[in-house]
């Protein structure tokens, strides 16, 4: 319990660092939000009014301190473009990104582990080679390419799933596969190698010697131990899927956080970018903590206390 509390407290300086970093980086990149937002043919007075309205005419340090003050009270500011509270903008999108990331991890786990197991028990056969080539392709395929290929095949030609948008569960299938494929490949490779290692251990030989059915040997004895490294990989990839869903969200017009960030960077909507990065950082840290705690469940030796 103490451990969890300590880990949670560690989050605060991490987030503080994140705000300082994003704030200074955002003010280092060229581009004037007021000018972009007002449009190329806006008049001088419109642009000045906007700058004032957005508080961009104050010194940087003052802007940062005000931002931190707001943050301490749970106020992330208002979007420069929509004038809505940043928190509302984020919370409208975050659940969608979460759904997509969970579905992506689902694809990675449900396909990656069986493929890895198959490759391990048929090691150095055609099945193994085919599975590993597939995994390599999965890691290498960029989301915008894979996304469009899946769309062409399953939406345009086969008509099984809708192409882009966000309306039904059907809309989730193609983006989830696009997003999950890379992680699936990593999970498959990790499962294969750690299972191969475990399969040579004495206790597996003992299990086999007891006359246990091979399926039981693998499922009950070998896999449980082999899954520890896989869990780390899954946890880490969940974090990166959350942040890395940008391309998938763009291709499939998925109304998630990634798209919001890309759009906001384009128009230099500083409060939204800051808020979104902060939210992603927080999630990433929490997911990592979750993974660490999960070890304890899978492997009692790791348990603290």
């Amino acid at each position: 319990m103490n451990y969890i509390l300590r880990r949670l407290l560690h989050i605060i300086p991490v987030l503080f660092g994140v705000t300082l970093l994003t704030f200074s980086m955002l003010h280092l990149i060229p581009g004037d939000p007021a000018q972009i937002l007002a449009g190329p043919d806006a008049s001088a007075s419109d642009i000045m009014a906007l700058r004032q309205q957005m508080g961009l005419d104050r010194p940087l340090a003052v802007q940062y301190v005000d931002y931190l003050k707001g943050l301490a009270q749970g106020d992330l500011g208002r979007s420069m473009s929509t004038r809505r509270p940043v928190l509302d903008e984020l919370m409208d999108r975050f659940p969608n990104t979460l759904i997509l990331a969970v579905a992506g991890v689902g694809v990675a786990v449900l396909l990656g582990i069986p493929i890895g197991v198959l490759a391990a028990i048929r090691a150095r056969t055609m099945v193994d080679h085919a599975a590993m080539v597939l995994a390599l392709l999965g890691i290498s395929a960029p989301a915008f390419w894979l996304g469009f290929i899946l769309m062409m095949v399953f939406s345009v030609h086969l008509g099984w799933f809708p192409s882009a948008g966000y309306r039904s569960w059907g809309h989730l299938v193609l983006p989830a596969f696009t997003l999950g494929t890379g992680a699936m490949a990593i999970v498959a490779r990790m499962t294969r190698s750690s299972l191969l290692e475990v399969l040579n251990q004495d206790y597996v030989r003992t299990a086999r010697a007891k006359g246990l059915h091979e399926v039981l040997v693998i499922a009950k004895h070998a896999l449980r131990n082999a899954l520890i490294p896989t869990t780390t990989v899954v946890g880490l990839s969940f974090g990166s899927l959350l942040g890395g869903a940008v391309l998938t969200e763009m291709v499939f017009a998925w109304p998630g956080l990634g798209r919001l960030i890309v759009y906001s960077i384009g128009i230099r909507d500083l409060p939204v970018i800051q808020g979104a990065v902060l939210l992603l950082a927080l999630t990433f840290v929490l997911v990592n903590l979750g993974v660490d705690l999960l070890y304890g469940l899978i492997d009692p030796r790791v348990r603290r206390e």
Partner: protein
Amino acid sequence: MKKYRPFMFIMAAVITLVFAACGGPDSTIDRDVLIFAIHNEPDRLDPPNQTDNTTEDIVRHIFNNLVEFDEYLNHIPGLAVSWEVSEDGLTWIFRLREGVTFHDGTPFNADAVKYTLDRMMDLEKPTRRTSLYEPFIDKVEAVDEYTISIYSEKPFGPMLAHMAHAAGAIISPTAYKKSGEDFSRNPVGTGPYKFVSWTAGDRVVLERNDDYWGTKPKIKRIEFISVPETSSRMIMLQNREAHVALNIAPHDVEMLEAHPNVQISNKPANGWYYFGFNNQKPPYNDVRFRRALNYAVDKKKLVDVLLKGYGRVSDSLLAPANWGYAPIFSYPYDPEKARELLKEAGIPEGFKVKLWSPSGRYTAVVEVSGAVAGYLRDVGLDVEYQTYEWGHYIDIISNPLEETEREMFYIAHAPSTGDADWGIRPMYHSEEWPMPGKSGNNRYFYSNPRADALIEQGMVTANQDKRKEIYEELQRILVEDAPVLMLYEINQIIAYSTGLNDLTISPLGLVFGYNAYWSEQ
């Protein structure tokens, strides 16, 4: 079974190739729904606070103006049935349409108009478009329930065009008082469609206004879905998951046209495209140098090859779709003449010039800029061509003379009032130079006292025929002065579903669905 799973993808792909001819999604149409695939999410559905085309498109479905544009940007009665201007040009009187109500039941009358205009002119809380009204309107007065008077200190020629600008749409005072800043998420107007919902990042849904004062729309519901990727928009269109897609690139037309579910509309728009020069930086301050650059580029080829013919070589600094346009002259492609002029201007062979463009945003901008760099090299200039991300670009082409390094930079202008005044004044008047602490759109630092005088004259002349003459002379001076490298206008290409009729296409780069209907199947 498990071991076959990896091969399911491959099998699916093979099956696809085999069945490609007979595949295809369900193409039945719900004739009550029209779906626009738009490229970015709208920002604020509040008329004077929207600044981009997609938002304006939605806003114009929800609201009406006193004066509206027809498909040729003529001014036609909207919420005003008639108007007149006093002899001295200082008072405009608008007679309002009776029996109109806002979507929330608030009656439309002179008070609503006064409220709307007063709100825009409030300098304490300026809107993003306050400068379209505040400098020209002195006072607004509700004369009676259905008459409104607008007073100015000086006559203002383009008054009607500014009234027809999307920012001038009349809002429901009741709704605005109730929602305040949130009005842009709960817009209430008098237009053909009512606002229903806005799912952030996904779509805006509108529903037919059954009490609409004008021609009743035929389609019950319009949805605007934001789909950032061009290819995704095209696929949705082919699948009939979306019915209208704007801003189609010329090189995609052929592929779309070949699809049985898609048809193409190709019409002129009111924007034009060019390279601005820094007219103060030597040798750009020499008109011979600027003209030489204009002669050096084969504009016709750019249009025919890089725009696939979906454009027109410009013959003025204003597109023909705008009020006040006059055809003047396009510098023909004449590299010999360009070399001669360069020689006259004392430019040595291998003279270094800088050419900038954004890395996107405009149709074929990088290809065109690359080609222009080539043409300029052909006449002996040493061109350094560089692209920039838009947010950075707009910054470095908008800074004051003292700070800037710009020489030639790609930019476009589509006057949102469709009028010569807005097309020329902010761009070429010498008081519109960007200065330290003050932005401006005369990014070329162009200055000609005669042009300034004509610009001012056009602005304060109320007689529209006289204004046309003024602008013709003005455009002649501008083309002769060549403050920019004139390129072309690009057509507005729209892809939409077969079976869909009577989309309203405005040269302002907008498409409206309020007259549209689906054919019987």
